[in-house]
């Protein structure tokens, strides 16, 4: 049982390390009073992501009529929320996305959009796994390891 827990914990740590520092900050905000804080926030984030991605994809849909302002505003918002949540890769894509937007490069925007979509889904999966691990650790009687990422 201990080995199981230890193993799980190690896995957990690895996972966490691979995530952005900001995310661990986020985790620190969670406490007994708000046990689901992180879950809630990332859920919100993912919701925002999909919404924004939808919006942007609609804007980029027709080549002759792209509303770059809207796309730009979407990217901006995505950048803000992803950086707040600690979704580093998403945020990085947003940076290039914004550049494409600034020069009104529709192709580039579409590519970035795809990438954002991909990244956030990946993150979602990863976080899901992370949370699962957490649960398993707890259920196995272990403690969630606190990981400090420098």
């Amino acid at each position, binding site marked *: 049982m201990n080995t199981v827990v230890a193993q799980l914990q190690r896995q957990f740590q690895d996972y966490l390390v691979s995530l952005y520092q900001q995310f661990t900050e986020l985790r620190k905000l969670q406490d007994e009073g708000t046990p689901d804080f992180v879950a809630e926030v990332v*859920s919100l984030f*993912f919701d*925002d992501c999909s*919404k*924004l991605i939808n919006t942007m994809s*609609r804007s980029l849909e027709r080549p002759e009529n792209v509303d770059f302002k809207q796309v730009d505003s979407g990217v901006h918002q995505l950048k803000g929320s992803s950086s707040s949540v600690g979704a580093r890769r998403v945020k990085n894509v947003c940076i290039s996305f914004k550049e494409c937007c600034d020069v009104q490069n529709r192709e580039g925007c579409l590519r970035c959009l795809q990438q954002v979509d991909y990244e956030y889904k990946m993150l979602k*999966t990863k976080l899901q796994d992370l949370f699962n691990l957490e649960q398993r650790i707890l259920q196995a009687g272990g403690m969630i390891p606190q990981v400090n990422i420098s």
Partner: protein
Amino acid sequence: MTVEQDCVALDQFPVGMRVLAVDDDQTCLRILESLLHRCQYHVTTTNQAQKALELLRENKNKFDLVISDVDMPDMDGFKLLELVGLEMDLPVIMLSAHSDPKYVMKGVTHGACDYLLKPVRIEELKNIWQHVVRSRFDKNRGSNNGDKKDGSGNEGVANSDQNNGRANRKRKDQYNEDEDEERDDNDDPSSQKKPRVVWTVELHKKFVAAVNQLGFEKAMPKKILDLMNVEKLTRENVASHLQKFRLYLKRISGNQQAIMANSDLHFLQMSNGLDGFHHRPIPAGSGQFHGGAAAAAGMRPFPPNGILGRLNTPSGIGGVRSLSSSPSSGMFLQNPTDLGKFHHVSSLPLNHIDGGNILQGLPMPLEFDQLQTNNNKSIIPGNSMAAFPSFPSTQQSSLPNNNSHLVLQGHPQASPSAFPGHQINKRLEHWSNAVSSSSSTLPPPPAQNSNSIMSHQFDDGSSSYSIPFCDSTIPLAPAMDTNPRAFYRTTDLDSNANVQPGGVYYDSLQMRQSGNYGPTTDALLSSNAKEGFIVGQQKLQSGFMGAEAGSLDDIVNSTMKQEQSQGDLSEGDLGYGGFSSLRTCL
């Protein structure tokens, strides 16, 4: 957390400092809220700038500090910043993902006391209370410089100088006078308890009358002060008030013209006793600024700005449009030495626009009628007064001096001077109805973003339009936003959906241009609609959701909060409870 924190906070500032957080991005808002809680502040959140303004206007003393995002669909963060600063005089911190220095500059020039970048770090938030202290301290110092009067404990009396809302100060007074005094002493031993001047309607009327009498160009604080002849008012108080007034007029003057024209007409129609009023003598002498009659009469020369300014405020509807356009217009000339130039009639912006004194007499009748039947002592929706306080926010509706207690400086609140708020309400309602009908014919500008309170009023037409002075009712309930949830940390798509249509609607009424946000608003509208979202969701994730949902579900469901039924996979993302989105989206 709320109540306890307030009580606890008595001696533990900055613990319990009350922050209002505004950000349309719910993720960031949620995080911000949590961070602020960590700092032991008391937090209120809203994802709409309009809602935030309402909250602030509702009770000046409710908040110590405002943190606001820059990019918001319903109102530009900078605009909100300005409004809050002018109307409520609260410190505002900007928040943005834009690190571009020019945004930071813009924030600073619009009066932000700080500019934070996303992602916000808790270390930064731990220090924001300094802005609250600093702003109070500055106010203290300001009001005490000119007049070291013994203003002990006068919440009820007109005090201070610059602070229409006197929010911070007053609140502190309210719940901890001792602490406040102590802090003052510590901060600045030379400054006494700083009495704050509350610019009530009555006071403002006097002020305006005095300015009128002196002539806009000639209006100097000292002279105004003399004319007003109000006890316990200092030159500094008047000076800062004058400055704000000028700013206000400058702002609204930059606003729409079309509406103004229409509203003028309506306004004209509205005022009945016009003729009768014209006959009233204007007290030429300076001494007569006491009492209602004098004040009212005194208002006469200053009609357009007063009433119209107020009525039209939000988008500069009516009235003061030309304020900024013609440098010589209005009372707020920077150059007060223009002796001969100032002429009431001609210099008033409205006159400019209308090419005449059409409006000049207008406000008067209105005022007097109101004067007749006022029962509402506490709230004096004096026309010009109204204009003034509402100025800081072109979205007027609630005057900064929202206090119900009319603070009179030893001047009896004579019945003539007390305006029947009720009456005014009615008139204004009619007026706003009229205006709204007229304005609705105006071609909707492309994607307006800024919601003016005026728009809101138009929407409602009646009930929600409350005279600024009637602080019992906060005017601006946007017709659309009746959803109380919108105010609280809104994580609901629904509340957004409620809001969006309103936002769009407002936009069409609003003449202001902010193209950037328009599209966003629209987008949000569509994307916020639950159905839209779901559809989109499915489109993007149809492949994604299929396979794994089953296996993950079991694990997750047992431990996660579930707001949606298991079978509701397609809607998973909409659930805000814990993991439902993760669960179903995988």
